[in-house]
């Protein structure tokens, strides 16, 4: 009994202390700090994406702070990064967005995967919190599900899947000269599903029929049933618009089952982890993506150099797009003239052209940039530029 009352007293004291601390903190005058939230996939199915995103973000913030901070309305602000892990889960991505919103960030960067970006975008839109997704390419991310109109507070640094699906289809038809194309995609993930559907539509519009259109669910590791079907359908090419963590398994299983056709994918492949996991089996394969390090512009070269000296590795597309998202955000915050979400949103919407490290982005009244895509071939364990596809 005595121990219990002691325990109760202890709890009361702790709670009281927390309340006092919170009250004091909320009364403190606002320091000259701008907080930007990062909603990233640090754990879960695609942890390397989260790590690259965090690296790109930290580099961008470090650079702006080293230059004396952001100047907004004649006053200098230090930028502070608030990182939240969304565990690569839709519900956690929404929760992370809520948390960042409550923490009072001026703007949120991320999430990256569309399956996380879509729910987080819903939260951002209703909280009137400006959001930029670096890597989400699904059309739905920036579209309001209820009205079908573009969302007001959601922007992105990547091209959209309607474009990428078309690029992949044209590449398959014109360069790979496929006549019996097949697709295997994750039906439970927005990105994979969206791009697979556009690919199929474009291929069929050109009069070629897709001989196998097979699905799986996020986290599956055995694709032998689907791949056996694909092989039995006599496919000569296989499109895998899936994440880098799953593609090596799919390529390996396809080859072990005796599939000899060409295999290619989309920007979700663009991570060097793919080569680590896949080894020789991914040699010679192609994918569409945002930028290629071997044809970089001077601005991109500076970024690549800074990134390499800080982290000791080549920045992948997520790191580059995150860096560009911060570039866009900084430009908008400066242009807004005051630290206010609505003003930042209006300034973001007012940007018509931005030259980032992933190329020139043009905004035409929506949160979706128009930009070119590149096709990469994997050669000798490296991502090599193959060709460019214009919008």
């Amino acid at each position, binding site marked *: 009994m005595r121990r219990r009352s002691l325990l109760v007293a202890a709890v009361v004291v702790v709670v009281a202390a927390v309340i006092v601390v919170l009250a004091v903190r909320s009364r403190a005058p606002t320091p000259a700090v701008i907080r930007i939230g990062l909603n990233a996939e*640090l*754990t*879960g199915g695609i*942890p*390397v994406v989260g790590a690259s995103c965090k690296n790109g973000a930290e580099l961008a913030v470090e650079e702006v702070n080293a230059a004396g901070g952001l100047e907004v309305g004649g006053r200098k602000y230090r930028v502070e990064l608030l990182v939240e892990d969304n565990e690569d889960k839709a519900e956690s991505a929404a929760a992370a967005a809520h948390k960042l919103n409550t923490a009072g960030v001026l703007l949120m960067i991320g999430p990256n995967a569309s399956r996380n970006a879509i729910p987080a975008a819903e939260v951002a839109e209703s909280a009137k919190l400006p959001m930029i997704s670096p890597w989400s390419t699904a059309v739905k991310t920036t579209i309001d599900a209820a009205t079908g109109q573009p969302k007001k507070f959601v922007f992105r640094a990547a091209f959209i899947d309607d474009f990428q699906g078309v690029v992949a289809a044209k590449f398959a038809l014109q360069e790979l000269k496929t006549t019996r194309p097949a697709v295997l995609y994750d*039906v*439970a993930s927005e990105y994979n599903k969206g791009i697979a559907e556009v690919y199929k539509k474009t291929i069929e519009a050109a009069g070629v029929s897709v001989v196998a259109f*097979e*699905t*799986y*669910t996020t*986290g*599956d*590791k*055995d694709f*032998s*049933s*689907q791949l*056996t*079907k694909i092989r*039995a359908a006599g496919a000569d090419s296989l499109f895998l618009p899936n994440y880098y*963590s799953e593609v*090596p*398994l799919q390529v390996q299983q396809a080859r*072990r*089952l*005796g599939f000899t056709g060409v295999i290619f994918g989309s920007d979700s492949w663009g991570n060097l*982890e793919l080569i680590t*996991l896949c*080894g020789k089996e991914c040699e010679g394969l192609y994918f569409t993506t945002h930028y290629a390090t071997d044809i970089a512009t001077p601005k991109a070269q500076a970024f690549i150099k800074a990134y390499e000296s800080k982290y000791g590795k080549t920045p992948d597309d997520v790191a580059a797009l995150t860096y560009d998202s911060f570039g866009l955000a900084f430009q908008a915050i400066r242009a807004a003239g005051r630290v206010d979400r609505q003003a930042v949103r209006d300034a973001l919407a007012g940007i018509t052209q931005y030259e980032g490290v992933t190329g020139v982005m043009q905004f035409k009244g929506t949160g979706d940039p128009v930009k070119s895509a590149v096709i990469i071939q994997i050669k000798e364990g490296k991502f090599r530029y193959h060709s460019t596809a214009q919008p």
Partner: protein
Amino acid sequence: MGLAVQYLLNALQVGSVYALIALGYTMVYGILTMINFAHGDIFMVSTYIAFFVGVALLGSALHLGAVPVFLATMLAAVLGTATLAAVIERVAYKPLRQAPRVSAVITALGVGLFLENFTLATIGPEPRFLPPLVPVGRIVLGGVVISTVQAQTIVLSALVMLLLDTIVRRTMTGMAMRAVSWDKFTAPLMGVPVDRIITLTFALGASIAAVGGVLYGMAYTIDPYMGIRIGWWAFISAVVGGIGNIRGAMIGGYILGAVEIFTPILLPSTYRDFVAFSLLLVFLIFRPTGILGRPVAMKV
């Protein structure tokens, strides 16, 4: 025809791994009537042991051949995992032997969470491939393609199961296990060291899972959370076969392998878990003792 054989082979490969893991569930249930929900995560740890040992051996200056490397990796995974399971049993489950059964189950869930998050924190979330321990090749027979990994998995699993069946049925230790599962209170009167037998059962179950872990790791990627889904599927295998029954667990494993492979052929692939868990429900409602489980069936 060729296609059907191909599907069947794929199902056998997946089913072998489920069966090997299901054996651990069923043996522990047989002896303690407890579901060791950490078993899937113990399986996960075995794949990581195999990963690190495999990488070290292949990278070492010893230049061992493929067969010694494979055997050494397997041995390290089996011993490491067995030790881990024995330690878990002594530290986490033994103090709760007299507590209500639900306490042990909750502790098992906790141990599972600990293993997942410990791996996540120390090794990291990136999925990994085991290095190719044995040269990967393909055998083509008619329209059927058999990879060496597939053949290895099917044959080795069958051998291990045969070995286990012999241990349980023909050795003194096996007899002691059966005695403890039969009557935990009378067995010590006959001179059976109950605590030691229980620890041994955990270790044996984990060893078999480790064999499955190495074989699984050679075919698929490994990650800290892999044990959750595979653990559940193996658990369903054990229930379908008749929990507590060793041969039942083997049969259940192959059935779940067939579910895994044939569901995406007949239905959309998203129905896999739905079919597997429906099977669990149907069995729990209409035949809770499973295919082979009878009230008087041999347990362990």
